[in-house]
């Protein structure tokens, strides 16, 4: 047997063993570091809780005019983390008051220099503090706050920009929808649902532009869908033609949104053409059209709906049956004629018998 077995390449093996020791040692050291950081965080969490209580007391003292040691600015030398906490305290105080009390609090905060602090944070603080300052300034209606929010629309952080834009939108300070959409910087293909929320807050002044954009077809389909439903929910009657035109969109989701929006809008003129949606090739669109027909259909609608009771898609049949019930005795009679002797699996039978208040997919 040889003195040293052939696979004992000492140099390489030593490197491998040493590398493993180094890696395991490094991981243990990192863990110890995390351990220490965690302990610091636990301590700072306790410290923050105490500081938050103290700052709340100081803010309330300041706005009520109580000064135990006159002439000393107790907020002048706050550390960075205390400034962050101060913003949280201010926001909590504002959010916890309602109506006239809130307006009074805002005026007091303005008079006692807290609004000024929010301006400074919005201009110079880190991103999270800029966003918090923007949320606070959203409650102020004076020109200086609006100017500061306008400036924040061009912030490098998207969160701060969106906070400023939402605040300005609520104050009717956004000059155009085009500008809003450009600055929101959301995906054209897969926009977040928060865009739907923003559309639902559009002030009346921007409705004509919104309608023009729906008609013009410059918006990506998903944006159009969200805008259409928002306008329908806000019952912007002037949008009727634009919403009705969307029923010819090549995208099924947009066509379905058109019927949902028209149903929400409540304009009875939709009864003249709702039968078109009932014949759409997409089951989602037919479902939405059934819902719309149930709400706004005219005397000629029930027979069209009754034909949908034989639709190949179960959910279209179900929605058509629900819509028929909206037509009172006439609709119920049609439904009973069709489904009275059917089995439990029949969509019409279900609508006649099941409880009303469940969500339904489809």
């Amino acid at each position: 047997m040889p003195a040293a077995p052939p696979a004992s390449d000492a140099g390489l093996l030593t490197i491998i063993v040493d590398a493993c020791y180094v890696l395991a040692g490094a991981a243990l050291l990192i863990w110890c570091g995390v351990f220490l950081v965690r302990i610091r965080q636990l301590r700072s969490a306790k410290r923050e809780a105490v500081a938050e209580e103290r700052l709340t007391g100081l803010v309330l003292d300041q706005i009520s005019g109580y000064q135990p040691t006159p002439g000393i600015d107790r907020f002048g030398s706050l550390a960075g983390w205390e400034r962050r906490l101060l913003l949280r305290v201010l926001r909590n105080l504002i959010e916890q008051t309602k109506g006239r009390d809130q307006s009074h609090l805002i005026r007091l905060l303005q008079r006692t220099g807290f609004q000024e602090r929010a301006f400074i944070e919005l201009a110079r603080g880190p991103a999270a503090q800029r966003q918090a300052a923007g949320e606070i300034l959203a409650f102020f209606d004076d020109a200086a706050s609006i100017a500061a929010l306008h400036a924040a629309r061009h912030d490098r952080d998207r969160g701060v920009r969106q906070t400023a834009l939402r605040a300005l939108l609520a104050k009717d300070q956004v000059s155009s929808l085009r500008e809003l959409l450009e600055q929101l910087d959301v995906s054209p293909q897969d926009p977040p649902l928060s865009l739907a929320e923003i559309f639902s807050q559009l002030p009346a002044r921007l409705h004509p532009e919104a309608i023009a954009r729906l008609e013009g077809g410059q918006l990506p389909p998903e944006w159009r869908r969200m805008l259409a439903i928002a306008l329908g929910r806000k019952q912007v009657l002037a949008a009727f033609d634009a919403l009705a035109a969307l029923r010819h969109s090549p995208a099924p989701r947009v066509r379905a949104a058109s019927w949902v929006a028209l149903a929400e809008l409540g304009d009875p003129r939709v009864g003249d053409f709702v039968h078109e949606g009932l014949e759409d090739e997409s089951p989602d669109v037919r479902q939405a059209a059934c819902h719309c027909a149930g709400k706004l259909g005219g005397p000629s609608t029930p027979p069209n709906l009754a034909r949908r009771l034989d639709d190949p898609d179960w959910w279209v049949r179900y929605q058509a049956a629900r819509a028929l019930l909206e037509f009172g005795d006439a609709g119920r009679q049609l439904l009973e004629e069709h489904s009275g002797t059917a089995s439990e699996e029949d969509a019409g039978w279900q609508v006649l018998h099941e409880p009303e208040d469940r969500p339904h997919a489809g």
Partner: protein
Amino acid sequence: MPADPLPAAVFTAAACLGWLTLGLAVLQYGLYTGQTVLAFLEMRRNRKEERRGPAGWIIGAKSSPGISLLVPACNEERTIVQNIRSLLTLRYPRYEIIVVNDGSKDGTARAVIEAFKLERVPLRRPHPAPCQPIRGVYRHRDHPNLLFIDKENGGKSDALNAAMNYAGHPLVCGVDADSLLDHNSLLKAARPFVEQPHSLIAVGGTIRIANGCEVHGGMVINESAPRKLLPLFQIVEYLRAFLIARLSLSRMNTVAIISGAFGLFKRSAVLDAGGYTHGTVGEDMELIVKLHRLFQARGADYKILFVPDPVCWTEAPETLAVLRRQRTRWQRGLCEVLWRHRDMLFNPRHGRMGVIGLPLFVLFDLLGPFLDLAGLLLIPLFWICGLLSFKFMAAFFAVVVLYGVFLSMLALVLGELALFRTTRKRDMALLALGAIAENFGYRQLNILWRIEGIWQFLRKQKGWGEMTRTGLGRKQPAGPA
């Protein structure tokens, strides 16, 4: 008579085999290191997203997507009522709970119907996802968001399909009846769907082990590390699996498993994929792989994400026998899925999933145990026979053990950074000790169970095996708070 010296060829063969084993181990751990780096990057991105704003705004938003919780229950009489009560307190604006009694032999159905005073309703829905016949549908007049379906036994996937057929919301969330969801978990899991409503089709969250935690009213109210070794090892193991493996796969959009205990899906996508597949014990992985296959074939821009923070708590086995049954079953499930979808393996037509996602499973979970076992048996044997030096053996075990410690410690670090939960110094020390100690015996046992699972798959063994649980919240933590 003196023994003949061994021929040189034997030494050469042993050396080659030894170096091959060591090289493959180093390669495997190198890949783990790559995954760890990706996991850290993905976690940093997630935290950046979270800083943009709280998920709480969804609460007040009209556009928040509704969620149907699908809760399959089979012989869960002891825990089901408490778990439904806990689900009813979740923080989310629009959700319903659909509990499916999968032909239980105990009093599960009676317990739920009596506890919630449910009435039979004539509710029928089409069955796009195949399932066994429904015996009855029950609900409470005043709680329309709780639906109870009593059906013939058909297995977990069958029960999930039945619940899916009755789901009324666009998102569905499979939840095990013996698991507990964090109060805010639905909000956190729904957040990516709010941000990317079009392209996202599924989101998985972290499963954490509740052994040792204080549970009250169906909620974990005091987190604590268990004092028993087996659950402690499993905590480290789960953190490694979720926070290193799944987080890194999520970054590459190659997530192949969303745990059946907690995952949020777009209902339409699951129905398009045909629902959960019957006859497999790996129904959760099977569904995800089917979704990848379907959306790849459509050429769609889709995403399946793992988000660490939504947390679901589960009870880990505390005995070796139960743990062994669980692990062999998981391994069988994995083998079944890989076998069913073998045409996707290394196939560029199936995109990253075919080239990266599934091959990683083959390497780590299918070949890995054999490689590990070969190393554990052969290298000491060769050393005893004098075919390899002691230094070589030391190098091999250094790679296996020290690298294992390295990965486990990094998983703990990721856990602290992503989940931010440990609040006691003693728990942190216990977890660190667990991360070191699991490399001496526990990991080796797992290797054997995995190989046993593969053997069971080859023998076409079926069934789930009995999982004995004591029930969350029935025990108090061993130590004082």
